[in-house]
């Protein structure tokens, strides 16, 4: 495989069997890296990082809340890119990727909202507030639910794939809105501290565990994405076999 160019390999792994072989080899190593990164991140986050001078120990929720929010948006971008590739290039595994990414993204978004509520109660005195950041994250969750519901409702996989791809692309306008919501509106949620034009303004001792957790979560996402894609390919094979036996 190494003598092929990138585009040739892109098309080569469109073959589900080749994808299954490669992903089968990757899942366990990626899982190990995930465990190591999250383990190290949790050590630094819970034990070896400073407390905030205002918030005390509750600031440690940030190390779960922020990476979850990042992954929720990252998963939507993966979903939207895969949908674009599915619609434009008709890559056979692109819609499998998008379908598999959706529940992961929804889970991360829900986790971000839940940990945010748990953090907001001691810090702001309220479980929820209808400001721009929280509302747009809630809309992101609704978009995920709608996407999953569309896949579940349309029975025929090819038709479902294309319809879901259109929905994912139309909804992708929400992702920049979520990110810039704290810039465009005066919100209760704090403004961006890491992904800014001027660079991160967060202390290094807090940035390191945050980044460890973020990269660990990303590896978790990639591992689970590959696992879900493998399951979806197997599910489609079962369906094809069932249809074939039904014809006989």
């Amino acid at each position, binding site marked *: 495989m190494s003598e092929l160019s990138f585009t040739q390999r892109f098309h080569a792994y469109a073959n589900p069997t080749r994808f299954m072989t490669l992903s089968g080899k990757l899942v366990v190593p990626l899982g190990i890296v995930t465990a190591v990164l999250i383990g190290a991140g949790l050590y630094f986050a819970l034990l070896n990082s400073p407390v905030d001078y205002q918030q005390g120990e509750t600031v440690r929720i940030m190390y779960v809340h922020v990476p979850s929010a990042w992954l929720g948006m990252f998963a939507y971008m993966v979903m939207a890119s895969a949908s674009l590739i599915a619609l434009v290039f008709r890559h056979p595994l692109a819609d499998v990727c998008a379908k598999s990414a959706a529940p992961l993204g929804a889970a991360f978004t829900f986790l971000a909202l839940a940990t945010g509520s748990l953090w907001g109660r001691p810090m702001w005195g309220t479980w929820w507030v209808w400001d721009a950041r929280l509302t747009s994250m809630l809309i992101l969750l*609704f978009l995920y639910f709608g996407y999953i*519901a569309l896949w579940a*409702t349309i029975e025929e996989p090819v*038709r479902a794939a*294309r319809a879901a791809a259109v929905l994912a692309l139309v909804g992708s306008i929400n992702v920049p809105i979520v990110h810039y919501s704290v810039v465009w509106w005066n919100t209760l949620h704090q403004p961006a501290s890491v992904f800014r034009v001027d660079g991160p303004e967060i202390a290094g001792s807090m940035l390191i565990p945050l980044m460890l957790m973020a990269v660990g979560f990303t590896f978790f996402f990639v591992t689970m994405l590959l696992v879900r894609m493998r399951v979806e390919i197997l599910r489609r094979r079962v369906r094809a076999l069932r249809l074939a036996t039904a014809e006989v």
Partner: protein
Amino acid sequence: MMRAFLSLVKRDVALATQVGGGGGMAVFFFLVAVSLLPLGIGPNLNLLAKIAPGLLWVALLLSSLLTLDRLFQADFEDGTLDALSMGALPLELMVSAKIMAHWLTTGLPLVVAAPFLGLLLNLGSAHFLPLVGAMLLGTPALSLLGAIGAALTVSVRRGGLLASLLVIPFYLPVLIFGVAAAGSDVAMPGVSQQAMLLLGAVTLVSLVLGPVAAAAALRANLRS
């Protein structure tokens, strides 16, 4: 092509008005929903006056959502959509014609009914004109964006609820700016002009996004 566009609009308007049920039932639902709200919230006229623009917009949204499956489903089931997709008009223009007919027979009657229903909610006299203006500007966006949900679920037999759920995230900017443009003092005091302009922007974006996305969704559903 203009003739084909106009004749499709005329056909859809004729179907909606003669076969019945579309616009009339939407207005009836609008009336019922607005009547339910004071029964639930309490008849305090001062409170109702403060929240009337928001309540009217939410009821308008819900009434609009209910009419979405009339957009494509009937034509899909009897094969007319297949014939239209092979006709003179590009799919995006065909979808635009249907959306225009939908707005004329559903959105416009709702906007006409809104000031009368505002009386039921003790809407302040200063808010009537901005409210109608905002609704006139916003209801085309509701039809345009709703067509996306209707097109995505056209092949699903009882897809009305799913279409509504898919479309609600896209309706939210229309709702937020529409309520602010209606001069709601409680929601966002003093920003009604900017909100009206932003509402216009949302409608213009949906003028492009709606037919293109709906046509893409119809292509996905028609082909397979």
